């Protein structure tokens, strides 16, 4: 009677269950029976029950109640029970379970058992799930076993030692002497274990590496024996003698020869011999060759050998077997940085692999192709990569798109090519590009002023064909809004002229606005673009007005807010509209390395200047004095500007103009809007002209926080309206302007205006503030600027 019959009956029962529910029922009954039997004292069938439980565990049902039974079985004197017990321990226990501590003693006893199979069970379990404490306790035992005469035990002890070293790095020292002596073994299993142990020790500590360098001649000797020896039936796999051991030794030689001339010299002959003698028609031979090539390329080998190695890789690339091609590309990836030219020679084959049916091969080819792009081959490579992008599997799209962008960024031969490439990627894989693509592209377009006409034509045409790719639509809307006049002019040198009427353009934008495919962000873009067009076109301003007013009652708060503000712009501030909506200034190109998290906020601010407003809920659009052309303010100093409350349109101009300052610390979003009482702290008059006085007082709130209160008063005979303040501070200081208490200053100092400014100066730099004052008095707009260098009370 074989001991597993009850197990087999249960398996049969489970298999005959026709539905999942039936199977669950069978398993629950069995588990209940097993639990009951566990509680009983010793009976003959204990091992069967645990075996059944392990089967149930493999199917995915809970089996934790078997843990204590495992512990009991391991302690039993009978081999069959020990066997199942240890198997159970490996499957059910791990370091986090308390029960695992209980088996430490059993393992210790079993390690000194007279029967080698019991010893091997203990070693196996220790190697699989031994915790750090167990390893520390039992390491001396393992070291003793490494010196035993039984090769079966020795090889298992060697691998167990590897596990111990991985868990507790310090114990590596303990095993160094035994590892060294194991190299003179004849048994391949022991040799294999020894090489793995030495590899692990060398990888962990450089001093050990130095000591093991002396073993290079021994290793070379062993390899030679394997390569030259004839057919040995024991370890032969398809004609190659113990390929597993050969591969391991080659790997160890690689680690020992790295950066060391002497060791590398000792290996040169051997590597040449292996490279030429190994039969490459079978997979095994290729495994050894592959390892040899990697070793040659990693150590300081002579140039002839390197050439040989790269040629072997080239041959691998042309092999029909896909596995070999995959392996070849993996290894080329490892050397592309060091031996770039050698890999470039195989560029053609690699690019062909992009078209392979196999997804794994495609993945490797994509990574390699991206690594091989250089200034000289950018055009041809990009063509191939774009073809790949249109047909590539979805999981590789994002990687391909971002790789293409990086390559285009680095090596673009001309701006037009760059813009074309990005547009191509957006049309084919628009859904998979990263979020920063939109602002990056917009920045690129604004910088290329000579191509505005070309770009807007292209984008318009792309918009007409397909409005499902959101990034593309966003960029297109933005460009049409900005450069609509160029579009309507109709003529363009770079591309064929197309007659576009104002109605066409507005139709296109309206389709985007109304389409269910457009996200709220895209709609925001489209609405702003429509508004901008009101100054660029002549005939259909009423149409724009009606579109805008419709969205005044849109459910989406963002759009509603924008529409309401644009409406206000039409109604009350029509005279300002042209100034507010004029062309954007050129955005300074941030260098690549400075893409920080804040930059990705840019599109948020770009597309949702209204978001700024959301925090202020129903702030009425601030009136005049907000002349938008801030270039002179920013041009004069390199400080980021914090605007006061502002109109949506001007907000977008201001916010995107902000990154003009180098390093672009982006703005804090405007804070709350509760009017705060005047601070009684010491005040100083900072500005006094034409009857308008501005005083400043500040109060230190915390280590780096400071509240500044600006108070304005009017001692002239006439009322002042539209009084606004804007402030700019040094780069590292963060500034938040609260809403002013009012914007009118009645004559003769009837009432004062206060505005609170919260500063945060974490770097404790010298605090300076530049304040711009603007107001309307007797119908004329007055603007002035004052710099405050010293703050009272600081």
């Amino acid at each position: 009677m074989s001991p597993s019959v009850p197990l087999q009956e249960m398996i049969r029962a489970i298999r005959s269950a026709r539905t999942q529910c039936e199977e669950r029922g069978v398993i629950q009954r069995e588990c209940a029976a097993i639990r009951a039997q566990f509680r009983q004292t010793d009976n003959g069938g204990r091992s069967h029950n645990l075996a059944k439980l392990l089967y149930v565990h493999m199917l995915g049902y809970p089996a934790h109640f078997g843990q204590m039974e495992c512990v009991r079985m391991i302690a039993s004197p009978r081999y069959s029970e020990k066997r199942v017990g240890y198997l159970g321990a490996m499957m059910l226990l791990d370091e986090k379970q308390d029960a695992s501590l209980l088996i430490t003693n059993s393992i210790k006893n079993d390690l000194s058992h007279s029967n080698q199979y019991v010893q091997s069970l203990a070693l196996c379990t220790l190697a699989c799930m031994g915790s750090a404490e167990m390893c520390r306790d039992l390491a001396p035992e393992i070291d003793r076993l490494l010196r035993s005469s039984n090769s079966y035990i020795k090889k298992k002890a060697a691998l167990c030692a590897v596990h111990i070293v991985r868990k507790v790095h310090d114990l590596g020292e303990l095993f160094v002497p035994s590892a060294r002596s194991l190299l003179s073994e004849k048994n391949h299993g022991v040799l294999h274990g020894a090489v793995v142990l030495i590899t692990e020790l060398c990888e962990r500590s450089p001093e050990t590496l130095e000591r093991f360098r002396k073993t290079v001649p021994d290793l070379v000797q062993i390899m030679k024996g394997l390569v030259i020896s004839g057919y040995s039936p024991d370890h032969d796999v398809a004609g190659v003698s113990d390929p597993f051991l050969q591969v391991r030794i080659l790997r160890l030689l690689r680690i020992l020869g790295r950066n060391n001339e002497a060791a590398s010299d000792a290996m040169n002959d051997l590597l040449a011999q292996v490279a030429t003698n190994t039969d490459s028609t079978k997979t095994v031979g290729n495994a050894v060759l592959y390892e040899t090539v990697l070793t040659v390329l990693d150590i300081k080998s002579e140039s002839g050998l390197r050439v040989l190695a790269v040629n072997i890789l080239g041959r691998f690339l042309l092999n029909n077997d896909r596995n070999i091609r995959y392996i070849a590309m993996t290894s080329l990836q490892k050397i592309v940085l060091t031996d770039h030219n050698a890999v470039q020679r195989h560029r053609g084959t690699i690019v062909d692999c992009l078209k392979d049916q196999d997804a794994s091969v495609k993945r490797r080819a994509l990574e390699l192709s991206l690594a091989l792009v250089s200034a000289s081959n950018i055009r041809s490579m990009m063509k191939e990569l774009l073809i790949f992008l249109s047909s590539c599997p979805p999981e590789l799209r994002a990687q391909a798109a971002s790789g293409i962008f990086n390559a285009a960024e680095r090596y673009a031969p001309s701006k037009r090519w760059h813009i074309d490439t990005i547009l191509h990627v957006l049309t084919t894989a628009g859904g998979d590009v990263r979020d920063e693509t939109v602002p990056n592209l917009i920045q690129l377009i604004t910088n290329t002023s000579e191509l505005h006409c070309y770009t807007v034509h292209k984008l318009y045409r792309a918009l007409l064909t397909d409005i499902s790719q959101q990034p593309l639509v966003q960029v297109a809307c933005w460009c049409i809004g900005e450069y609509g006049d160029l579009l309507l002019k109709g003529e363009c040198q770079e591309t064929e002229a197309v007659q576009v009427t104002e109605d066409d353009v507005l139709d296109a934008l309206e389709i985007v606005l109304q389409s269910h495919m457009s996200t709220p962000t895209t709609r925001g873009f489209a609405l702003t673009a429509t508004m901008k067009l009101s100054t660029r076109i002549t005939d259909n301003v009423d149409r724009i007005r009606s579109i805008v007013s419709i969205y005044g009652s849109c459910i989406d708060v963002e759009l509603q807010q924008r529409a309401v503000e644009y409406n206000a712009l039409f109604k009350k501030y029509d005279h300002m509209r042209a100034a507010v909506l004029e062309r954007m200034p050129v955005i300074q190109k941030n260098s690549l390395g400075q893409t920080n998290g804040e930059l990705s906020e840019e599109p948020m601010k770009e597309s949702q200047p209204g978001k700024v407003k959301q925090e202020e809920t129903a702030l009425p659009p601030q009136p005049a004095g907000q002349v938008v052309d801030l270039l002179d303010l920013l041009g004069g100093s390199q400080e980021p500007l914090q605007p006061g409350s502002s109109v949506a349109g001007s907000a977008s101009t201001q916010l995107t103009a902000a990154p003009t300052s180098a390093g672009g610390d982006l703005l804090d979003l405007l804070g709350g809007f509760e009017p705060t009482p005047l601070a009684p702290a010491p005040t100083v008059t900072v500005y006094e002209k034409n009857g308008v006085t501005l005083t400043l007082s500040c109060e230190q709130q915390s280590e780096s926080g400071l509240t500044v209160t600006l108070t304005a008063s009017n001692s002239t005979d006439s009322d002042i309206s539209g009084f606004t303040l804007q402030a700019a501070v040094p780069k590292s200081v963060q500034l938040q302007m609260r809403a002013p208490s009012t914007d009118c200053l009645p004559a003769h100092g009837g009432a004062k205006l206060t505005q609170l400014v919260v500063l945060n100066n974490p770097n404790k730099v010298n605090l300076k503030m530049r304040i711009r004052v603007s107001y309307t008095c007797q119908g004329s707009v007055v603007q002035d600027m004052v710099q405050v260098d010293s703050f009272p009370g600081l």
Partner: protein
Amino acid sequence: MIKAILIFNNHGKPRLSKFYEHYNEDTEQQIIRETFHLVSKRDENVCNFLEGGLLIGGSDYKLIYRHYATLYFVFCVDSSESELGILDLIQVFVETLDKCFENVCELDLIFHVDKVHHILAEMVMGGMVLETNMNEIITQVDAQNKMEKSEVSASLKICYLDQIQ
């Protein structure tokens, strides 16, 4: 290091699952399901290496698999193992199983899952390759089975003797 060895059939039912790193039971089942999902999508004539699993995959790990009739043998390894070497290891494993159970088929694996575990324990230990010589493995497994059988028959004899007396 080998992280896991999985054998499942064409419908995704696990026939053997051995993990060399600890995961809790739910994660183990999820890994089996995810691996099956990835591997079953592959064509017949593509390469045997797969990347891109999320749970047990990650940047350093690949799945190396071989499809024999109704069973998939999948090894999940990291970059310290030679990929072609593991392919050969799978071959050696299957040949060993074939020797141990005459002409092994899926039913053998189903009904003798504990035996398969013991054979595997002679080949891979703690995530590392232990022995690749087929004859050596079979010798050891046979010796251990004999030991187990002799124990059982000894205990049966004792029970019988008890009953007679």
